[in-house]
């Protein structure tokens, strides 16, 4: 998690240094012109960072549980399996959401110092699906890792990849602004998928 946070910090620092340098070199008017008339988003390096962060956190949290068979011990704790999974996934989800909020706040504040509120709001709507993709990726990794059989893991991987791909179909700034509810609903969809994996693990499907 620390590595993910440091990677995020370095990338944000790099992006702001690059944009700041561009403003100094070509002037703010030109940069604003690029953003407004050519529909460019200047922080596109951020695109896959949340996705990778979510996937890495999910894998690093759950792969050792599965490969070291600790999940069996964990599921033997005197709690319902759903409660156990909720705690585990909830912990990762809150950690990831916290990190994303910090990154988002950093980006938002930084942009606010450089650009007009309309551009900042547009930027926020542009990065929103990327951050949600990070949360989807986290849930997808748990969904795939907890599934007890490779026969189902592979279709689960394909399904998850297909769903997450939806959030990267358009590079146009704020392209997903009309469907924020659907994007958040995607998290609930992955929660349902995750319960399915937990159920299959609990009843010992092989």
């Amino acid at each position: 998690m620390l590595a993910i946070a440091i990677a995020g910090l370095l990338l944000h620092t790099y992006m702001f240094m690059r944009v700041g340098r561009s403003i100094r070199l070509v002037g703010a008017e030109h940069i604003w012109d690029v953003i407004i008339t050519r529909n460019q988003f200047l922080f596109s390096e951020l695109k896959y960072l949340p996705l990778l962060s979510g996937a890495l956190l999910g894998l690093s949290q759950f792969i050792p549980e599965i490969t070291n068979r600790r999940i069996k011990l964990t599921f033997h704790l005197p709690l319902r399996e759903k409660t156990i999974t909720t705690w585990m996934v909830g912990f990762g989800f809150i950690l990831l959401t916290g990190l994303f909020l910090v990154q988002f706040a950093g980006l938002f504040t930084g942009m606010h110092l450089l650009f007009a509120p309309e551009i900042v709001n547009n930027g926020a709507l542009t990065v929103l699906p990327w951050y949600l993709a990070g949360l989807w990726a986290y849930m997808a990794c748990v969904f795939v890792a907890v599934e007890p059989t490779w026969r189902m893991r592979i279709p689960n991987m394909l399904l998850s990849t297909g769903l997450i791909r939806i959030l990267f179909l358009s590079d146009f700034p704020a392209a997903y602004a009309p469907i924020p509810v659907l994007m958040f609903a995607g998290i609930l969809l992955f929660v349902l998928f995750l319960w399915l994996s937990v159920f299959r693990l609990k009843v010992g499907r092989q």
Partner: protein
Amino acid sequence: MILYGQTLISKGKIKTMENIIECRHLTHYYGDRCIYEDLNFAIAKGRIVGLLGKNGTGKTTTINILNGYLQPKSGECRMFGQKAGRLSPSVKQKVALLLEGHVQYSFMNIAQIEKFYASFYPLWDKVPFWELMNKLKIAPKQRISRMSCGQRSQVALGIILAQNADLLILDDFSMGLDPGYRRLFVDYLSEYAHAEDKTVFVTSHIIQDMERLIDDCMILDYGKLLLQQPVDRFLDSFKRYRMTSSLAPNWEKMPVVHPEKIRNKMEFYSDAGRQTIVQNLEEQGFEASDLQEESLTLEEAFIGLTGKY
């Protein structure tokens, strides 16, 4: 097979049995390979039962089915009356589980793991845990991942003893342990289980450890359960016989298992008793005057029953 409510007479004690574990008509396959078919067994309260078998006979499979980690092809297992895979938290609290390889949260140190488990078990008793840890002379802040296999086994044992559970399930506890740690493990567990009247279900392929520990043995062979019996009854009846003869009798007409003839020396195993063996041999025209009957250790009896191969 021990059935619900049956009375068992063992070591002079008479007990009315209440079954803690019941498995009925279990059948399981891995692909086309049959692990067992129509396996039935029950484990009564207060008994220490060893599930013995060669590698690949389905010991860990049985533990996995019992704990709901594996769904059998057919049949069902129940613990404390609840179906495997659907155990309530209150039943899970009564079952302490040691997984094959002493799997633990190895990123924790012993102080952390003690605190972690204590929060889940209301009857948690930290005394046996720290007693065992003090024997190991390891620092409370040493991570479990940096311990030897023997030390990890003692941490796992300490945890299951401290849970104060009614049923202890231990899957191949002896794996990777040197003789000293195996003895320490067995002596500690045996003392604890007998003193506290706990039920223990244990698997191992190192049979010599089991003889010091278990009351009843279940012996699995490829595809079936060969035997479920109190160990003392098994060892009282199951004997090895040796005799000298240039010819071999028709083994199929005799109640023996795994007969072997090397030159003129014959060796076989049976639970039919010396008199029956002599009678069988004489009916086939053999002189049985040099027939020797030998008592066996559990390990020898296990090999006699399941064969060397």
